[in-house]
């Protein structure tokens, strides 16, 4: 355990990103998935990329984040769910998972 901790400390380069600065939320609205990305101080992410994965975590496509606007994409009716990850240029990242139930608008 101690050795593992030391190795981890040694491996961590200065400037490594803190993983919890970004908060991602996604929901379904009018047949679209809407993705919002905010920092924990409430500021909207102005730039970055939205990576969309399917239910088995295979990447489907990516979309740009621009100007703090929510990112939208149409729901694929045959989708088994999505994991939606947002990565900002300064290395922050977070994700949100939508299950088939979420996509149907049930619970």
């Amino acid at each position: 355990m101690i050795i593992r901790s030391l190795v981890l400390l040694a491996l961590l380069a200065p400037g490594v990103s803190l993983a919890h600065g970004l908060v991602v939320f996604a929901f379904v609205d009018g047949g679209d998935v809407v993705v919002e990305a905010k920092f924990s101080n409430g500021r909207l992410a102005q730039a970055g990329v939205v990576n969309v994965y399917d239910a088995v975590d295979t990447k489907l496509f990516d979309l740009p984040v621009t100007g703090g606007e929510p990112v939208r994409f149409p729901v694929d009716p045959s989708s088994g769910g999505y994991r939606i990850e947002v990565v900002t240029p300064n290395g922050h990242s977070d994700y949100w998972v939508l299950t088939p139930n979420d996509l149907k608008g049930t619970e």
Partner: protein
Amino acid sequence: MIRLCLLILGLGLSSNTAALAAERTIAVVSAHLGDFAQRLGGDGVEVYFPVTGDRDPALWRPSVAEIGAIQSADLILLNGAEFARWTKRTSLPRARVVDTGRSLADRFIVTQGAITHSHGGDEAHSHDGIAPQLWLDFAQAQTQAEAVAASLSQRLGLDITAAAQGLSQDLAALDARAKAVVAGADMVLGAGPGFEYFLRAYAQRSATVADVAGMEAALADLTEEARASATVLLLTTSQSSNAKALINRAMGVREVVFDFGSAAGDAGFVARMNANLDRIEAALAR
């Protein structure tokens, strides 16, 4: 005769189907909550804990299908205290979610550190924040068990009175045993995060250490005289290498491998914690 057998068989199948239909599914984020739910609910519940092997459920990330199964459960038992961060990254049905650590919020331990990393597909994580292993103070585990009991009784309508009494007695006995056993150590060190509540509840003197320098600093708190005769335990989550064990021995520290009880295991929570206390007792007797 054959028709009679088939009829009996058919009735048996019907009653089994009815029993299965009545069985409630309880999704849990940690093995200790799964054990509490199973002990309390008995045959009336089926526990869903998809974290297999020795993966750490605190950092585990479920698949979309696993989240779907959790969303469908009759009850979803969370630990709280920021354990299983994935629970904050999807929609869970509020009416069926129980945060078993909620009433312990004023007892949460805030940890400090700046290590952020991830293991394979698991959560990237920092050691900043709240120590989540609430259950390692067995009085707090009892509070969590009471929250589980209340949810099974009130939300699922199960009669769990006798089972709740038995679990409560076992946890009280575990708490008393931990106090008695750990009292034999002059100082207890936790190798890395995770031991905070156990140390606060049971150790006379304690520290969380990340490396040999940290261990030396903690031992420096003891006077020269005390250091010569002190019994110091080092709790770890896995056996150290031979070299590390030699260093520990040279520093007069007795290593004890400690099972947090949150990952999947063959035994129940009380048995796993008693096994930890057995190892501490053995280390103190060396």
